């Protein structure tokens, strides 16, 4: 089961109503508590109202694996091979909006500016709600950050786990989410591509996040049949596609 939070944006009347109506009790009692990522702490199940809210008073919906299959296959039926791009764009928009919401939450919670915080720490703060809500554990490799790219490993991707071994990458929504979030975070356009996927028989999913020239190069090599390891090696060696 996975859940998705409905992100609120400041200035919206609806968002204000949501914020007034939904209050996470544990958060109210312990506003400074930072270890709140167990499912029972992070989510508040209100039996009387019949709703679920997260730590930040956002409405949350639980969905089944059937929903995920329905979403992916329904989109494929509607738009064919463009469904990958549509899912990526959905993720990208989500990520961009989430970068704005995350900045507010982070600065309220830790009383420090995002740009003055250790990147590794703020990334953990960003991803933990996703982990809690069933989007999988992650591991970020920032060793090539100075060279304009980074790798993210996702263990237990909800999309790949649900679809099973279909022989191709399927986590386009994750790729879009990472592209959108990191674009929003550093205010520079970034892209993302899934280099290996659990749905290709791998043990985990691996994503490359970086400037568009890196992503284009990786996509080219991938189309030529290169493995994730080959692509990673080429990128680490500073190789780009010859124009």
């Amino acid at each position: 089961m996975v859940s998705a939070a409905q992100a609120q944006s400041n200035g919206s009347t609806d968002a204000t109503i949501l914020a007034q109506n939904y209050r996470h009790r544990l958060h109210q009692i312990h506003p400074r508590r930072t270890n709140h990522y167990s499912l029972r702490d992070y989510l508040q199940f209100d039996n009387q109202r019949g709703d679920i809210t997260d730590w930040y008073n956002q409405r949350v919906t639980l969905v089944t694996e059937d929903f995920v299959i329905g979403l992916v296959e329904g989109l494929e039926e509607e738009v064919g091979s463009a469904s990958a791009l549509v899912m990526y764009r959905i993720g990208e928009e989500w990520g961009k909006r989430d970068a704005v919401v995350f900045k507010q939450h982070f600065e309220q919670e830790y009383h420090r500016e995002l740009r003055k915080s250790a990147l590794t720490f703020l990334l953990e703060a960003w991803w933990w709600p996703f982990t809690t809500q069933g989007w999988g554990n992650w591991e970020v490799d920032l060793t090539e950050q100075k060279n304009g790219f980074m790798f993210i490993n996702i263990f237990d991707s909800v999309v790949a786990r649900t679809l099973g071994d279909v022989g191709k990458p399927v986590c386009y929504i994750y790729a879009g989410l990472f592209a959108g979030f990191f674009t929003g975070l550093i205010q520079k356009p970034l892209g993302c591509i899934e280099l290996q996927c659990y749905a290709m028989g791998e043990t985990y999913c691996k994503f490359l996040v970086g400037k568009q020239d890196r992503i284009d190069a990786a996509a080219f090599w991938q189309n030529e049949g290169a493995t994730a390891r080959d692509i990673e090696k080429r990128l680490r060696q500073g190789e780009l596609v010859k124009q």
Partner: protein
Amino acid sequence: MLRQLEKLSLEADGRYASTEELEFLKNYLAAAEQRISAYEKIRDAEEKILDQVEQQLRAKSPHIFRKGNQDYSAVCRRDRKHVLRLAAAAMLFADLDALRDGFLLWYRTIIKAFRDEKVAQVTYQVLPQVVNQVLSAEEAPLMQPVMALTQSILGE
């Protein structure tokens, strides 16, 4: 224990609980006084425990709390205090799952984010030994599984 009680109340709804199902409750109640006593001893000796841990860590490595020119003694002490309090609560309620899911798994990623794995490894080797010193022979085994879980997750 609280989670087990919650589970039992759900599963035994509309029927009597079996003897086997009540076993955890009997075990908990049998040691409840020792749990409270151990909790109170840790609570009352908190500063002493933290001081001793700090002394032992400094004895092992004088600059253990330094990173470059920055001294992180106060931050590390705050974090150890947090771990000790949550560990003591987990022992009191006999709820290791809550400690693991609600704190340790998250905190491990924070330790990793700040590259503090080595300091954590030493810290959570020393902490159980110091905590044991304030507990009686009957109380120490109640804290042992909590400390072992903490060490295995944070001190890997």
